[in-house]
Structures are given as C-alpha cells and as structure tokens.
C-alpha cells in the first residue's frame, strides 16, 4: 500500500530503466553515459514504481505525488500546466463515497459552499473536474503544506510555543468571522481541518459537515451536527434538539486553542459515550503553567452555556489575542512527508514534468484510451470578474505542447489504472 508513495530519490530511475530496455534515453544520452552498467544499479523494487512516475494529466493538471489520504480518496499535488500554479487535488471516488454515511451529500455541500466563499483564510476551490467513466471527481484547490494536526504531532509535548499558537489562532478567528458573516457554521473546527499555505497562512478546510443558515433566519439555530466528538460542545454531547450554530464553532475553536497550547484535550474518554458524558458534565481543568490571560480566554470560549460563551467579536478584542507574544525558541516546523526526505516539502511534480517532456518510449504506443473530464467551475463566484480572454490565446508553441500532452495522456490512462496497489 505504502509502496508507491516512497518514490523520492529515484528521480531518474524510470529513465534508467527505460534506457535498458528501449532506445536511448535522452538525458543519459546527452550526459554521454553508458547504459549497460546502469541496469545493474537499479533496485528491482524501483521497477515497480515506474508506472507511477509516468506523467498523468487530469484535464490541464499534471499530477504529482500523494500528499495525503482521506476517507474519500487521495489528495495529490499537481501543477496547473496553463498557469503554472501549484495545486492540491482531492480525488473523490464515487464508489467509496457511497459507502460512507452522508458521503455524497457532504461532498456536494462542501463544493457548493466552497464555490461561493472567497477569503484569505478559507481554502480556495479553484476548479472542479469530473470523469464519468472512472466515477471520479477532482477538486482542485490551492496547495497547502500540511495540517496543523500534523505539526502538533511533530512537536515535542504535542503543543506549540505560545507565539506560534497565537499566530494560528488569530488567523482562525478571522476565517471564522468571515464564515459566520456568510451565515455558515463550520461545525468541525479542529487542528486536522486547519491547513497552512507555503506562506504560513492558515486556511480553514473541510466544510463537509458545515451548514449554511438561511439568509432570512433571525438567528443561527441548528439541529444537527456530525463534527468530531472531542471538539463538540456540551449542548451537542447532551443531544439537545436545537442550539446556536455559531457558538458551536466558538467551543471547537476553544478546544483547538486549548489543544495547541497545552498538548492535551479538555475532555477525554475511553469511548465516545464516556467522552460525551464528560463533555456533558462540562468539568475540565486547565493545566498548570497556562498564563492567566490565556486561561481567561479559554474559560470564556469553553463556557458550558452557549449563551455565556464569548462572542467572536470579543475574542478579537481579548487581551491575549491582541497582545504581541515574544518569539521564543522551539518553533515547530513541518517534517518531510512520510517516506520522503525533502525537509521543505518541495514541488513533487518535477519528475513527472520531465517524463512529460523528455521521456519518449515507444513500447506502449498501442494503448488507446481517452479520458473525459468535465469542468463545471466557470464563473463560479457570483461576483467573479470575467475570465481573461488572453488565457485562451494559443500560439504555435502551445498547441504543439498540447499535442504532446494529448499523446501522453492517451498512454498514461490505462497504465495508471493498473497500479499494483
């Protein structure tokens, strides 16, 4: 299973392999290297990877390595070959989706919401592709380095230094304020749903269980919740029929802040029943060593009665939030993706790009496979400016590229469907 993720070092391995069995590889030819001894250098395991390093285009997106795997499918890094933007693509398999409770409905809702949202701290859905034949959906989003959860797990004591937690929390509050201003209750705020961009900008993601409140509803009353148990407020743990939606997000953000600064959770339990029982009682301790100011904020956010819980507006004005926290040692940075060595989590599409443009093998010309992707993301934001016409202009060079890509796509289709995974 994990095999095809561990590809990294072997950037040139596919070429080496090709050089052995087919004609002369362009790169090694240019380097003037002899191809005979190179065969012996190949680890047999690497031969398996070969198919995975093959360039695969989904629409105009060139796929890179896997970034993560969720219950709906994989998330891969990709390159927009028209704009050269780095992207992340969430691949959703309909077949898998059907097996998950509310799966289809949640994905549909998430897409609908993301399409109308545009904010610095909300993940941007830039395109949406579908492949009817494969029953797959591709959500093209802005690239993020990883989740806060991942960072927390990499941290000693599983927590951030105060200045770092503060940095993320402030951004969370801003994103949340925007969501609420648009009448959206996220309902599943937690470190696992907060991403960081390459510029360390926090992005709220996963609106699968979010709810949009009717624009004409007088208040934010909600009736259902499918969020993560440890982050749920007492009113949900106690199974109340209706509750204030926005205050649910305040509570979960409180648990998130608690977790980021202490490394533990305010409420735990051996199973969900015990956990909900504990949350339902609302008794929790703030560990020693938490400064009074932060304690005060946490207490405000984790108020048992939703009505007494501090409002976003007052969180923004809270002393701990407004304060400038001195930068202390111990900043937690991302570790390389499992199985990779790159500390900086660099761009993984490059080897695929090389394959796309330099690799010419003739042995599998016989495949005839055409993928069909339907985009349904044009003019999605209601206030979007008209698309720049220039993007459609093509010159000779580009159309030549397109030809090439088409050829590659034709080949890669079938191959990619026979992964040994």
């Amino acid at each position: 299973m994990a095999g095809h993720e561990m590809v990294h070092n072997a950037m040139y391995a596919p070429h080496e392999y090709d050089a052995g069995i087919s004609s002369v590889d362009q790169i090694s030819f240019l380097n003037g290297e002899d191809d005979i001894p190179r065969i012996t250098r190949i680890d047999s395991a690497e031969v398996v990877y070969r198919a995975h390093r093959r360039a695969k285009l989904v629409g105009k997106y060139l796929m890179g390595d896997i970034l993560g795997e969720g219950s709906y499918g994989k998330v891969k890094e990709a390159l927009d070959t028209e704009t050269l933007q780095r992207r992340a693509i969430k691949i959703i398999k309909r077949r898998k989706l059907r097996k998950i409770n509310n799966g289809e409905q949640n994905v549909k809702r998430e897409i609908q919401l993301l399409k109308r949202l545009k904010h610095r701290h909300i993940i941007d859905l830039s395109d949406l592709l579908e492949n009817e034949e494969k029953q797959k959906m591709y959500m093209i989003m802005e690239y993020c380095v990883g989740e806060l959860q991942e960072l927390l797990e990499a941290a000693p004591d599983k927590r951030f230094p105060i200045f770092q937690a503060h940095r993320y929390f402030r951004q969370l509050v801003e994103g949340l304020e925007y969501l609420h201003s648009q009448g959206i209750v996220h309902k599943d705020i937690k470190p696992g749903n907060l991403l960081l961009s390459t510029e360390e900008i926090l992005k709220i993601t996963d609106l699968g269980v979010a709810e949009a409140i009717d624009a004409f509803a007088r208040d934010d009353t909600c009736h259902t919740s499918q969020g993560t148990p440890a982050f749920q407020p007492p009113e949900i743990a106690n199974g109340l029929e209706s509750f204030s939606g926005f205050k649910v997000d305040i509570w979960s953000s409180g648990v998130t802040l608690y977790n980021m600064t202490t490394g533990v959770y305010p409420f735990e339990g051996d199973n969900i029943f015990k956990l909900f029982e504990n949350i339902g009682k609302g008794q929790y301790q703030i560990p020693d060593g938490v400064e009074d100011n932060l304690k005060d904020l946490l207490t405000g956010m984790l108020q048992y009665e939703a009505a007494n819980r501090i409002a976003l507006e007052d969180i923004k004005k809270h002393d701990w939030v407004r304060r400038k926290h001195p930068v202390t040692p111990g900043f937690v940075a991302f570790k390389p993706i499992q199985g990779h060595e790159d500390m900086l989590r660099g761009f993984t599409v490059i080897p695929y790009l090389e394959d796309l443009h330099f690799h010419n093998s003739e042995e599998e010309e016989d495949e005839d496979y055409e993928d069909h992707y339907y985009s349904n993301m044009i003019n999605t934001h209601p206030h979007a400016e008209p698309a720049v016409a220039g993007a459609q202009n093509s010159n000779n060079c580009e159309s030549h590229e397109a030809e090439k890509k088409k050829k590659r796509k034709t080949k890669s289709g079938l191959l990619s469907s026979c992964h040994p995974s």
Partner: protein
Amino acid sequence: MPLFGKSQKSPQELVRSLKEALGAVVKGQAGEKKADKATEDVSKNLSAIKTILYGAGDQEPQSELVAQLSQEIYNTHILLTLVQQLPRIDFEGRKDVVAIFNNLLRRQIGSRTPTVEYIVTKQEILFDLMKGYENQEIALNCGMMLRECCRYEALAKIMLFSPEFYSFFDYVEVSTFDIASDAFSTFKELLVKHKMLSADFLENNYEKVFTSYQRLLNSENYVTRRQALKLLGELLLDRHNFTTMTRYISNPENLKLMMTMLREKSRNIQFEAFHVFKVFVANPNKPKPILDILLRNKDKLVDFLTKFHTERSDDEQFNDEKAYLIKQIKELKADETSTS
C-alpha cells in the same frame, strides 16, 4: 556611536530639527534659497527617523531609540503637522512620512497600541488625512495611511461616525481614476472590516448612508456604479447586517432601482443587480408594496429571468438561484402578505 558616517542625532534632536525645518518650509516661498534648504532638511530628517524605525541595512531597529522617538513624536504632535504639510514635502519625503506613520501605528506594547491611542486623542489627524483625497498630489499617500488606520477599530469608528465620512461619496467619484479607486477601497474597508462596528453604523445612520449611497448607484461613472452595486450586495448578504438588509429590501424604491439595473446595458451590472434583486424575491416576509410590484410584473419578470444570462450554463449556483427565483415569482399570490 556608529563606526562610519556622521554621528547620529538623538531622536529628540531629530524631531526638533524636523519641526523647525517644517516651520521654515511653511514660512518660506518656493524658489527661495532658504526654503529649498528647509525642504531638503525636512527630507533628511524624515529619512533619519525612518532609519531609526526600520533599522539600516541588516541592522534591527533599536527598541530603546524607537521608544524615545515615538514619545517625542507624540509629545510634539508632529504627526499632525506632517499630514497637514504633506503637500509641501517632496516626493521621497512623502513616502517616508507614509512609512513612518504606518510603522508607528503598528507599534505594539503588550496588547496596547500607543500610536492608535494617541491618534484617538488627536482626531484631526484622521480628518486631515481624509481631506487629503482632495489634493491629487498627496491623495494616494493619504490613502495608504488611512487604510492602515482602518485596521484599528477605534480609529475606524471615529471616521465612520464623523460627518467627514460622507465626503467619501464624493471622493469615490472623482475623475482621476486611481484616486477614485483608492478612495473606494478605503471606503469599502471602513464598511466591511469591523463587522459589528459597521453593522451598528449602518443601522443607526441608515437614512443618511443609503440616501448618499443611492447617488453612487445612479452615478454617471460606470466603474463607480458597478463597484457600488457589488459592495451593496456584499453588505446586504453579510449576516452582521441582517437588520439593515431587512430594512433595505422592504423599500419598494430599492426594488425598482434593482429592476432597472437588471436591464442596464452592461451585462456586468445586470449580473451584480441580480444578486441584490434575488434577496427581495427570496424574502419570505415580503411587505405589501414589494409584493405588489412583483405581482404586477409577474409575467414579465418570469419571461425576463428565463432569458437572463442564459450563456452562463456552467455556473451551477447562478442557474439554481435563477430557477429558484422564477419558481418563487410564478407562485406569488396576492393574499400572501407579510406576517411581520
């Protein structure tokens, strides 16, 4: 003492000498030797002050010097003088003023922002900055400082609730495009940045604001009209402005205006108008005058909407909304009067 270059003046000396030079600039006539020298001195001092705040080269600013400098700046009220004399300062000097001003504003001690607190006690600074939009030469410099001020609720509040705020309705329409755009972005920032504050402002000054706003929607200037319409949609659909939205969509005049704009020549304006128009129709508690207008135009509206922007077939959300509106209008009945 630095190893190279001339010995540094203390922050107090710098501010004092800047103040003197500014005084000389005000008194002198352009072209006179003395005045030229004064202008040069102003620029030199500004540049030195900037260096203290931002540090030189790789050097970090020294917090002790920064503290002394800020204190001196507050004590001498030189920020106000700088803003007032901005037209007399040369190009580079103006840029330095902006850099100094914005740096000081961002200055934080714990959770306190001393410059913001200072400006609250010296509000003329804000009003003079706003007035800056009337002078082409300094308008964009003032814009940059104003937007930095907008980030702080206390300052935004002073500006929003001042009579001077209504000058923005003129500034956003001036003929110089870059100034009008700059003014619009400040105007927008004031209205959207601090949600609770602006919700409160819109509610309490509804009549005055929307009377002025009407002017923008009817502007001769296409850009103004379009930007204003777009911002209106954003404001009304923001949950914080619920009360204002309810009030806006209860006024038949507003509905008429949107219906007119739906038929504007520009398709972009039509499209923006659609996003405001839909709120009137979707309202479950339509007051009688609104319902009457919709009923009177029922067939025409259904017909119009059916043909409205049909080329946007890819825009799922738009088409869903359009279909919803058509259905709503078709099902309108005369007895369905408001319950509220």
